[in-house]
């Protein structure tokens, strides 16, 4: 198996039904931050996107209620089985790209009646999937409050929930918050603490200080030091379980990379075919990447870069080469991270 001090390391500290706390180490700040951004903004979930209001005699305006409905977390474990509405061949919406929820509440008694997320009924097209059910995580299992109605007031709506990502609208975010912290002792001086007399006394210590050595005041400032441990605290809204959110976030990031690789290969191949004199890199350009079959399976990370010879004998080219792209066999022993970059 892998030695413990090379390649990225993930240590999970705590898992709760809607939280995961883990440490990502031996990797760049840039990668850790990309993972964070990806988790926050790129993981697809399900949320109400269109509301058809049949009857609204509540005190709240139609658009106000529509907005509240949009923010209700809906079960999204199986959201991958749904198409994006924009990619679907249907004209408006259909069961391939949406989940329909209905709500009908009418107050017939004296006093005030509260309409909760649990009053939303999912139309049974996707009944065998974990998708679309409102998340009811409170003690009373009622879910979010939608509105309050008095006698003779009525709310009757049809909601169309669609798949989306929170880069478009925050209602699609799988997470309420992602705690992201590194260098709890501020050894790298990335943070400048405001203080009246003594910053050390006035500021509370981070919880993560216990996991790192306190700074030695006699030591000179190491301007080459880089952050190494990244403390994540991911808190979901309940639509997808927290471990899955992390995995999907990383996958979305990898999909982005794959999208660029695909397009880059296309333009490289086209340039080679056209025999374009202005070809960047000149002759033999098209063969460098091993043609169209590269992502078909085994060729990835294999011979395309000539293995170890590309960068003068070191295993730079094959560092992560053991794992075929998109094929993550758990616990594979091929991965050989013993040669660092540095």
């Amino acid at each position, binding site marked *: 198996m892998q030695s413990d001090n090379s390649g990225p390391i993930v240590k999970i500290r705590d898992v709760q039904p809607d939280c995961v706390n883990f440490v990502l180490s031996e990797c760049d700040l840039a990668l850790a931050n990309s993972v964070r951004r990806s988790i926050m903004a790129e993981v697809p979930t399900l949320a109400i996107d269109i509301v058809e209001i049949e009857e609204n005699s509540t005190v709240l305006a139609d658009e106000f209620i529509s907005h509240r409905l949009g923010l209700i977390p809906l079960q999204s474990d199986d959201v991958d089985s749904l198409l994006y509405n924009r990619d679907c061949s249907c004209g408006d919406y259909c069961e391939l790209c949406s989940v329909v929820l209905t709500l009908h509440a009418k107050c017939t008694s004296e006093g005030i009646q509260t309409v909760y997320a649990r009053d939303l009924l999912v139309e049974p097209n996707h009944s065998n999937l974990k998708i679309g059910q409102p998340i009811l995580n409170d003690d009373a299992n009622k879910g979010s409050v939608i509105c309050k109605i008095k006698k003779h007031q009525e709310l009757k709506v049809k909601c169309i929930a669609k798949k989306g990502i929170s880069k478009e609208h925050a209602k699609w975010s799988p997470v309420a918050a992602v705690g992201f912290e590194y260098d709890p002792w501020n050894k790298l001086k990335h943070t400048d603490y405001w203080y009246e007399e003594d910053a050390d006394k006035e500021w509370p210590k981070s919880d993560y200080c216990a996991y790192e050595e306190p700074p030695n005041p006699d030591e000179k400032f190491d301007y080459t030091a880089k952050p190494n441990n990244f403390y994540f605290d991911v808190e979901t809204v309940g639509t997808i379980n927290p471990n899955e959110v992390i995995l999907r976030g990383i996958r979305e990031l990898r999909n982005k990379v794959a999208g*660029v690789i695909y397009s880059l290969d296309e333009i490289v191949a086209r340039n080679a075919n056209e025999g374009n004199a202005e070809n960047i890199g000149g002759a033999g350009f098209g063969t460098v990447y091993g043609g169209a079959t590269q992502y078909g399976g085994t060729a990835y990370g294999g011979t395309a870069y000539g293995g170890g010879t590309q960068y003068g004998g070191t295993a730079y080219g094959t560092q992560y080469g053991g794992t075929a792209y998109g094929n993550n066999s758990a*616990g594979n022993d091929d991965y050989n991270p013993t040669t660092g970059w540095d």
Partner: protein
Amino acid sequence: MSADNQEKSHEKMDIDSNNPAQDEEVAVEEEEEDDQDVEKIKILPGASEDGTAASFQIIEEDHTLGNALKSMIMKNPEVEFCGYSIPHPSEPKLHLRIQTYGNITAVEALHKGLDDLASLCTVVEEKFSQSVASNNYKTVIS
């Protein structure tokens, strides 16, 4: 599934593939792609003659990809310089500049950076899954 049924489903597939209406559909799809005519990535003017320095424009990407990719390309000892920018905040465009020491082309350096980043993602994903599977953490089950 009985053999008969399989036979039928094969037949059905053959019929479908000979269906002219479906061919038409494919043609329409291709046309739509041509209409869009947007490349995910293109090489910007200003590349050197030998291809060891070039700028790329990637559309619909942001700092999520840009920063990680830049740092990954910078790790390559053959790369002299790599930087990225998002020229305008309301245009979904990412510009990436790569200059190498001359032994590899900028396109090769970019491709290597992308491959490494993809592999690194896979590794982090595996490590996370392993860590989850190890059960070596505190859990609260409600």
